[in-house]
Each structure stands twice: as structure tokens, then as C-alpha cells.
């Protein structure tokens, strides 16, 4: 009995490496997960946009135990294609690249995973790897599916033709996985090789296929797949089913995530309360409660939505539907210069632009990819939601239907702005026709729950890591800018407190009100005199044509780090508290007044802000990821400049139009 045993990632130091490679859609990652289990993690290849899953495993066979680093390379059709994923695989096989944190060495064993139901094409990549003269094992996956389709593969003959061990397995059921682990322990350099030219390899694959494979002839027509394909890619039915599936997806994300989001909110609230009551008032108290806990809590609250998005997308991808949806979207996006490959990146961007931009790696054409990266932040991410909620409730108090319309309109404006941007860039700096789509349509199947859960766990951890590092740092800097320099009590506040003292024994309620008013005045004064407040005063003239006063300017400036801080920044400024979950605080933001007594959130400024927040690039981490993924800071600055211009002009137009029409 042989058992692949996952082991703690840091417990061993081993240089024995097994590289797993194969075509896309052959169940390579499912097989990797079956061997590696929960210990696997995602790692980047430094200097590239490619990533691999890696795991340290202990393979046992008979009396022998090998501790290995298992690397799940990106799925490729050939090592010789001019694509970044093919180049990464070649570099790993050459020993010149390794996942971040690992030493680059030529792999000790190659595990080539091939699909039993599509043997001939899969043999091409086996032929390419045999030429490497490295110990090789070939895993023929999906034998259970092949059996159902009456496709027979002769294991012994195939092993003889390839000159290396061949294992028949099913990653889904676990069949053959123990035997595979044993073969990996004893892998040797193949005794045979394949031709090196493409024509020769194709002939070689065809010859081997004819020797080892037997399938019913003619192959039975797959009528169910045909019907589903025709429905899902139909010009009308395809769009309707796409709309229905996406509506269900988003409904689940927003509906189901609401509960864990409430729990996280409550948890951070109680942690803040606990820490606040155990640390004496002072700078450390403020830093911990207002900076660290509020900042990280405000970000981690989106974790359930992000996990749900990745989980549901992984399930949907597992069904085989996403490849069909890409063609439906391709028809809609092509006139605007994007391809159907942009579908998953743009969909993910509705949760957060960062995973969306990262998903754009899969787009083969460089210009298509750049256009998608530049457009992704226009999609309304979850961080915009608190701002949308605040502004729509100010614009339409007690009219939920109108609020819903305005909410939907925000999403539509973001999408339209994205399409317009793509059209503009593809006609100017990214001139050229979008590459036509050619995509393998995987078989429809029941998605693998374990793989989806492992991916979700991995993505969730990456997000938490980000919240614990970059966002924590931003929160601390913002808190510091907002808290310093400390201002003393104002004369007006001192007078109010003196007045309150005289009321203490006569009317406690009145005294409390006076104290609260004095505290509010001091908070407002401190905010005005803090570094962030002074920045607001300096930059206010720029935002004055949009109808923003100093406090709104501070809110907008603070949002450049991360847009969700707008609501809490406004709360801190106008109410002297950042407890924005309290309805009365939201009301006090809505009714907040200027230094001259006029309302901050008028009809005009609210619409202007809504346009501004839909279109502006208010997210520092997104810019960092854009620079990394697009290959330079010039793209991040272009994104920032273009989005800021579009946001400013639209907000200006909205405000001035409302003023001209007689609104306030």
C-alpha cells in the first residue's frame, strides 16, 4: 500500500522536485489536490504574471519514502508556444525558474498528466517532454469517463511506446493515485524519445494512438452536449441564460455573504471595545482602535463576498459553462475592442478590481489584456457599496425603489464607462484588431467541490494577507494624518463645558447635550487642523466647482488610499465618531452642515459625489497591481489620470447641470 501524505510546508528541506504538467482541462489540478491536499499554496513565479500551486509531500512506496516539492505548472497545449505560461514551464524544466521562495533546479521527476478521452492531442506534450531526458511518469487521467464512453487505452503498450511508467488514474475518485505515488518514487529517464519537429511529433502521436487506443467507431454523437452548447451560445437564449446565471451568482454573493459579514462586523466591534477598554486613553489607544482595528476590520468585512465569489466561480468553471459564457460575452465586447477572454476578469472586478486585474493574465493577446486591465476598475467593486448606500439614501430618503434604481444605475454607468474607455484606447494607444477567440469547450460535468474549496481557501488567505500588510499600513498612515497635530479645546467648547458644569446639578440631560456639543466642536476643530484637514483646505478650491466643501474634500482625498474609507472619514469629521453602523451617525452625516451652516450633502453634491465615486480610481492597491500586471507604472498613471479626469468632468457636469436646472 502506498500513500501520498501531505506534510507541513516548513517541516522539511528537500531539493527533490516533481513538476506536474499537461494540457488545460485534463484534471491536472484535481490530481495535484488529491496528492497534496490542504497543504498546497499558490506561489508566483518572480518577474512573471504566472502562478503555480506548490506543496511539500511525502511519497511512500514499499520501504522507500521520498520527500518532494510538488509544483503544479500552468496548463499548456505546447511547450513551444509564444505564451507566458509555456515560457514559465520551459524555464522550470530548464531549471532557470522556480516559484517564489523555492530554489531553481532542474526537476528530478516530470509528471505528465494526460486525458484518457483525448489521448492523441495529449500525446503531443508527452512527446515534447520526453526530449528533456528527465525521469518521467505519465498519468492517464479520467479513466472512469473513458470507461463510460467505451474508450480503451492499453496501459502496457503505451508504457512500452513511451519508454516510461504509465499509470491509469482518476483524480476525481482517487483510483490509481496510490500506484502513481509509487511510480513517482521509482521514476527513471525514459528509454525512448520522440521526434523534435512539430510534424514529426504529430505523426508520432498519431502512430502511438493507433497502437494503444480503441474507441467505438464511429464515436456516438453527444446530443446532450450539442443541445446545451447550442442553447448557451445562442444569440438570444445564450444571453438570457447568461443573465439568469449571473443574477443568481450575484444574488447568492450578496445574500449569503450578508450573515458572515455581520458576524465579522460584530467581532471587530467587540474586539475594538475590548481593546479600547483595556488600553488607557491616549495615542496608543487611538492608534489601536481608530487606526488598526477600524482599518483592518473595514477591509476584512469583505472577505465573505470575495470567498463566495471565488467559490461560486470555481464551481461554475467546473461545470464547463464559463467557456461557453466567454463566447456570449465575446459578441458584446468585440465592438468595443475587448474579447470574451475579458469576461472572468470583469466579472471578478465586481467584487474587487485586484483579483479581476490578476485574472486578466489568462488573456493571450497583450493589447486585449492591457485594455481589460485599464477597464477593470470601472466595474463597481464591493468597496464602493457603502458609499453608494450612503449617497442613494441621502438622495432618496424613505424611497427604497428609487434607491434601488440609483444603485443599479451606478453599476450601469461603470460598465458603460469601461466600454467607452476600451473603445477609446483600442482606437488610439492600443490600436489593432482584437484577436479572435479560440477556446476549448470542456465537457459538462459536476464540479469538484474539494478543488473549489481549496481554491477559495487559498484566495481568502491571499486577501487576508493583503489586509494584514498593505491595508493595515494605509490605515495607520491615514489615522496618523487625521489625528495629528493634536489641537487643544476651542474657546467655544471651553465656554460650553463651563456652561454644562453649571447645569449638572439642575438638568443632567441639558448638561450632557452641552458636553456632547463641546466634544463635537473639538473633534471638528481637530479634524480641520490635522494634516488631513489642512490638506482638505489646500485642495478644496479644486473640488469647489463640484460642490465639495473642506470636509467632503478630505473625504475624497482619504478615499484615494481606499474608497471605502469615505464613509468613516465623513463620520469622523462631522459626528466625532467613526461608528458608522449606528443609524443616527448615518443620519448625522446626511444632515451634516458646513462651517457656514449650510448642508454638505445637497441634491447637487450628492449626485456629483455619486458620479465621482462610480468613475474615480480611488484605490492605491489597484494601482500597484495594475503597474505590476500591465508591466509598468506608466499604465497605472494612465489609469489614474484617465479615471480621475472622467470622474471629475462627470461630477462637474452633474453638479452644474443640477444648479442650472434650479436644484440645490
Amino acid at each position, binding site marked *: 500500500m502506498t500513500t501520498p501524505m501531505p506534510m507541513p510546508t516548513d517541516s522539511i528541506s528537500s531539493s527533490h522536485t516533481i513538476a506536474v504538467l499537461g494540457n488545460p482541462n485534463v484534471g491536472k489540478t484535481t490530481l495535484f489536490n488529491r496528492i497534496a491536499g490542504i497543504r498546497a499554496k499558490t506561489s508566483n513565479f518572480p518577474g512573471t504574471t504566472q502562478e503555480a500551486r506548490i506543496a511539500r509531500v511525502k511519497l511512500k512506496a514499499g520501504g522507500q519514502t521520498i520527500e518532494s516539492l510538488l509544483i503544479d505548472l500552468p496548463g499548456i*497545449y505546447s511547450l513551444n508556444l509564444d505564451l507566458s505560461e509555456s515560457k514559465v514551464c520551459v524555464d522550470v524544466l530548464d531549471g532557470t525558474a522556480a516559484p517564489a521562495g523555492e530554489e531553481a533546479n532542474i526537476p528530478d521527476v516530470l509528471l505528465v498528466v494526460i486525458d484518457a478521452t483525448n489521448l492523441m*492531442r495529449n500525446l503531443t506534450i508527452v512527446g515534447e517532454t520526453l526530449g528533456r531526458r528527465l525521469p518521467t511518469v505519465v498519468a492517464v487521467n479520467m479513466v472512469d469517463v473513458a470507461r463510460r464512453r467505451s474508450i480503451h487505452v492499453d496501459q502496457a503498450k503505451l508504457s512500452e511506446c513511451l519508454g516510461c511508467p504509465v499509470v491509469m488514474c482518476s483524480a476525481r475518485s482517487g483510483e490509481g493515485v496510490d500506484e502513481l505515488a509509487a511510480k513517482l518514487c521509482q521514476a527513471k529517464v525514459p528509454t525512448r524519445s520522440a521526434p523534435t519537429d512539430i510534424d514529426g511529433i504529430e505523426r508520432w502521436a498519431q502512430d502511438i494512438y493507433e497502437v494503444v487506443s480503441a474507441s467505438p467507431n464511429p464515436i456516438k454523437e453527444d446530443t446532450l452536449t450539442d443541445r446545451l452548447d447550442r442553447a448557451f451560445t445562442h444569440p438570444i437564449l445564450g444571453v438570457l441564460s447568461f443573465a439568469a446565471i449571473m443574477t443568481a451568482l450575484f444574488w447568492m454573493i450578496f445574500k449569503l455573504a450578508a450573515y458572515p459579514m455581520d458576524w465579522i462586523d460584530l467581532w471587530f466591534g467587540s474586539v475594538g471595545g475590548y481593546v479600547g477598554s483595556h488600553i488607557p486613553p491616549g495615542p496608543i489607544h487611538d492608534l489601536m482602535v481608530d487606526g488598526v482595528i477600524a482599518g483592518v476590520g473595514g477591509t476584512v468585512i469583505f472577505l465573505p463576498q470575495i470567498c463566495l465569489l471565488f467559490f461560486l466561480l470555481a464551481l461554475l468553471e467546473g461545470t464547463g459553462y464559463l467557456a461557453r459564457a466567454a463566447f456570449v460575452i*465575446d459578441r458584446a465586447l468585440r465592438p468595443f475592442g475587448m474579447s470574451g477572454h475579458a469576461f472572468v476578469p470583469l466579472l471578478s472586478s465586481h467584487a474587487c478590481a485586484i483579483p479581476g486585474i490578476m485574472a486578466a493574465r489568462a488573456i493571450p493577446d497583450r493589447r486585449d489584456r492591457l485594455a481589460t486591465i485599464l477597464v477593470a476598475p470601472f466595474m463597481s467593486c464591493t468597496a464602493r457599496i457603502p458609499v453608494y448606500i450612503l449617497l442613494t439614501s441621502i438622495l432618496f430618503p424613505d424611497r427604497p425603489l428609487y434607491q434601488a434604481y440609483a444603485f443599479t444605475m451606478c453599476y450601469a454607468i461603470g460598465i458603460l464607462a469601461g466600454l467607452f474607455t476600451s473603445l477609446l484606447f483600442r482606437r488610439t494607444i492600443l490600436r489593432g484588431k482584437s484577436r479572435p477567440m479560440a477556446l476549448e469547450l470542456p465537457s459538462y460535468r459536476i464540479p469538484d467541490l474539494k478543488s473549489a474549496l481549496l481554491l477559495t481557501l487559498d484566495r481568502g488567505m491571499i486577501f487576508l494577507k493583503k489586509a494584514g500588510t498593505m491595508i493595515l499600513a494605509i490605515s495607520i498612515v491615514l489615522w496618523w494624518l487625521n489625528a495629528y497635530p493634536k489641537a487643544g479645546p476651542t474657546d467655544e467648547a471651553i465656554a460650553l463645558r463651563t456652561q454644562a458644569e453649571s447645569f449638572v446639578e439642575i438638568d443632567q440631560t441639558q448638561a450632557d447635550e452641552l458636553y456632547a456639543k463641546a466634544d463635537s466642536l473639538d473633534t471638528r476643530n481637530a479634524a480641520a487642523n490635522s494634516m488631513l484637514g489642512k490638506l482638505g483646505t489646500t485642495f478644496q478650491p479644486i473640488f469647489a466647482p463640484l460642490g465639495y466643501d473642506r470636509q467632503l474634500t478630505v473625504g475624497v482625498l482619504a478615499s484615494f488610499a481606499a474608497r471605502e474609507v469615505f464613509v468613516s472619514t465623513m463620520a469622523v469629521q462631522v459626528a466625532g465618531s467613526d461608528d458608522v453602523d449606528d443609524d443616527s451617525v448615518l443620519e448625522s452625516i446626511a444632515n451634516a452642515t458646513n462651517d457656514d451652516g449650510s448642508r454638505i450633502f445637497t441634491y447637487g453634491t450628492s449626485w456629483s459625489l455619486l458620479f465621482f465615486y462610480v468613475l474615480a480610481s480611488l484605490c492605491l492597491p489597484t494601482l500597484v497591481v495594475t503597474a505590476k500586471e500591465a508591466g509598468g507604472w506608466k499604465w497605472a498613471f494612465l489609469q489614474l489620470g484617465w479615471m480621475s479626469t472622467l470622474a471629475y468632468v462627470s461630477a462637474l457636469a452633474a453638479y452644474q447641470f443640477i444648479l442650472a436646472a434650479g436644484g440645490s
Partner: protein
Amino acid sequence: MMTTTDSKIESKAVPLTQLVRGQTGRIECTQAHPDDCSMLRAMGLHPNASVQMCRLGEPCIISLSGACRIGLAKDIASRVMVHIDE
């Protein structure tokens, strides 16, 4: 890029988009951008590969030797030349 297996067959070759649903053929060559040609070839659309038309239109869906399905934008499908089976 253009790959040719036999000049006699090439004279009868027609664009893949001319196959009707259910009709089969053998790929002759692909007349597209070199990167697209390499990609299609690696995906299994190599000269002499057997194809069956599953869905015409945008996208065009073909079955490769009954083993896998490939979706192709009409633009690229019209550049794949096939010899229709009798």
C-alpha cells in the same frame, strides 16, 4: 503561416464555415496570424485532423476526432481550410 499536406487536396479545400451541421472533414491548413496558427495546431487543429461541425455561426463549435470540442470565432473559423469528407 500555411501548412499544406497535399496540393491535390488543397484545390478542394473550403473554409471550415462552409461545413453544415454534422458534416465531417479533414483539416488542410490554417491561413491566419502565425501565433493563432501555432495555438490552433497545439489545440489539435493540425493538418489531417478530423473535424465535425457541431454548431455554425458565432461561435462556430467543432468536435475534434470526437475527443474534444473547440469554440472558434467565425473570423478564425473561416481561415481554417478543410477537405470535406465524402
